[in-house]
């Protein structure tokens, strides 16, 4: 097992190096001269040089890359071009609300999606299976932002049950924080849950047709025992990968939900920075999101290795 862990960890290094190089190259790919654009038409040559230095775009491209990589490894992501605040600080401020959203939305999606998938997959063409088909059709037709706007309209505008916007830390004020996170988390989780349910259903239905399950029925095990103890553990192995891939949807969903419910957060920061061409902030945020994404996939791989011994031996 240890060998497997080390092997997977070393595989993550080139991926991180490659993607960070891609993030570095982003600024250099921009058509025209982004420095001159940022400085404006009437900027003095000194000002232009200052911005160029600030963006780390002076000197040869190799020198730039070396400096950039060493800065990043030292945790220095540069400063915002718009307000001079360090990118690290901006990310530390924007991170927690997004992490809270993920911490609520992700378990919610798992708790909603997997049981529904199990109910539908245990008995294909049963009432639960039809319910899942209906739900899938619904989730497919509504992109998360349309769903979010609909939730916002129903629960805060029409019924007035929940606040429409803003963020209050879950850890400082659990009650109010929860009230404000329910709708954004639902808008993200409902879409994710439909995909999870679909995959769980397919995986379970597949396992239910295997001989060992028939053997379990034959020796007289009850419904519950056959599905939950015999079939489900094997069916959940592929679901681990899907659950990790859904993390990408979680990021997308969070960006959109932050816009709908005017919450501060990483998505909000990235969107605003693209609009104001605040390149160092976008680069820093991208780098962090990529690192998180790689880490999640790594964890999924490890979980897969634990669940299925064949994988760690290969």
């Amino acid at each position, binding site marked *: 097992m240890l060998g497997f862990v080390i092997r997977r960890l070393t595989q993550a290094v080139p*991926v991180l190096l*490659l*993607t960070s190089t*891609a*993030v570095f190259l*982003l600024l250099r*790919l*921009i*058509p025209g001269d982004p420095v001159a654009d940022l400085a404006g038409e009437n900027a003095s040559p000194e000002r232009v040089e200052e911005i160029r230095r600030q963006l780390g775009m002076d000197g040869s491209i190799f020198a730039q890359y070396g400096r950039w990589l060493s800065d990043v490894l030292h945790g220095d992501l540069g400063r915002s071009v718009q307000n001079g605040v360090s990118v690290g600080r901006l990310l530390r401020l924007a991170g927690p609300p997004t992490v809270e959203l993920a911490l609520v939305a992700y378990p919610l999606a798992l708790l909603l999606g997997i049981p529904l998938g199990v109910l539908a*997959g245990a008995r*294909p063409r049963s009432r639960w299976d039809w319910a899942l088909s209906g739900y*899938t*059709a619904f989730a*497919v*037709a*509504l*992109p*998360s*932002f*349309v769903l979010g*706007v*609909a939730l*916002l*309209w129903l629960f805060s*505008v029409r019924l007035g049950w929940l606040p429409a916007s803003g963020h209050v830390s879950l850890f400082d004020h659990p009650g109010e924080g929860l009230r404000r996170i329910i709708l954004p988390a639902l808008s993200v989780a409902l879409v994710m849950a439909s995909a999870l349910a*679909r*995959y769980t*259903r*397919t995986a379970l*239905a*597949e396992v239910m*047709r295997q001989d060992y399950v028939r053997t379990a029925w034959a020796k007289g095990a009850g419904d519950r025992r056959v599905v939950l103890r015999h079939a489900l553990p094997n069916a959940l192995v592929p679901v681990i990968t899907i659950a990790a891939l859904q*993390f*990408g*949807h979680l*990021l*997308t969903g969070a*960006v*959109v939900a932050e*816009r*709908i419910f005017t919450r501060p957060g990483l998505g909000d920061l*990235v*969107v605003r920075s*693209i*609009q104001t*061409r605040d*390149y160092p902030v*976008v*680069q820093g945020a*991208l780098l962090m*999101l*990529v690192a998180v*994404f790689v880490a999640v*996939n790594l964890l999924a791989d490890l979980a897969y290795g634990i669940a299925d011994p064949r994988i760690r031996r290969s």
Partner: protein
Amino acid sequence: MTQLSLGSRRSLRSPAPRAKGPPRFATLRRILANPQGLIGAGGLALLVLLALGAELVAAHDPAAQDAGRRLLSPSVAHPFGVDELRRDLLARTLFGLRISLLASFPAVAAGALAGTALGFVAGYAGGWVEAVVMRCVDAMLAMPGLLSAIAVLTVLGPGSISVGVAIALFNVPLFTRLARGQMLAERGKEYVRAAEATGAGPARIIFIHIARNAAPPLLTQVAMSAVAAVMLAAALSFLGLGERPPEPSLGGLINASRPYLRTAWWYPLFPGLTLAVLLVSLNLLADAIAEATGPYRRR
């Protein structure tokens, strides 16, 4: 969706009925013979016609500011109501549909063509060409679509064209992987050897002989990619990273309606419904294509 549920059905039990008439349109006829496919194709055709004929259907200019009150509810003169600048929402929804389609469909087509060509060549050539191409594809597929979209928008700046480029780039590796797999499955077959024996060059073999037989799964992926593209384009417009302000788009209209939810419920409703009909139609069509062309024909 269909692909997911395939495993659960005893798919190989019944052979697909042979379509009548000339084989040329057999697949198309099979798609339309399926109620899902008929509804999907009909819905899509209707929306495309409405988007093309937006000038004829809508009585108003999408940018014209009418006299009268702001945020009027639906009426005979303005079936979808009026927005905060007194612009006709029917016109804005239809022109928005046009922009949403223009930002997504050509981009999917471009990404599909480039990716397929790359995948065919990689699969046919083999060796280091294939290794290099496939490693790049793996790297691109490892990132969630949103991150690549952010990267593209950072380089090119916000705008409809950037959204299109992001969608195209996102689709290239998907099609490369699929097309290479198809190529590997086809290239050892006898008809390819026969074509080689008649002296056909690699380009002719790849793009005439093999492409025809490798097309079905690629076609299904085109439909599935169109769904994802419409969603991504709408989401980016919603975030304000798509088309520039006076231009309407479905996602942009829903975003613009947010401050007026309290009084004007119809404002986001009609663009949202249009988007939903578009997505449902595309999904039904994707399912029908998968069924009509897949090895596991159900009906």
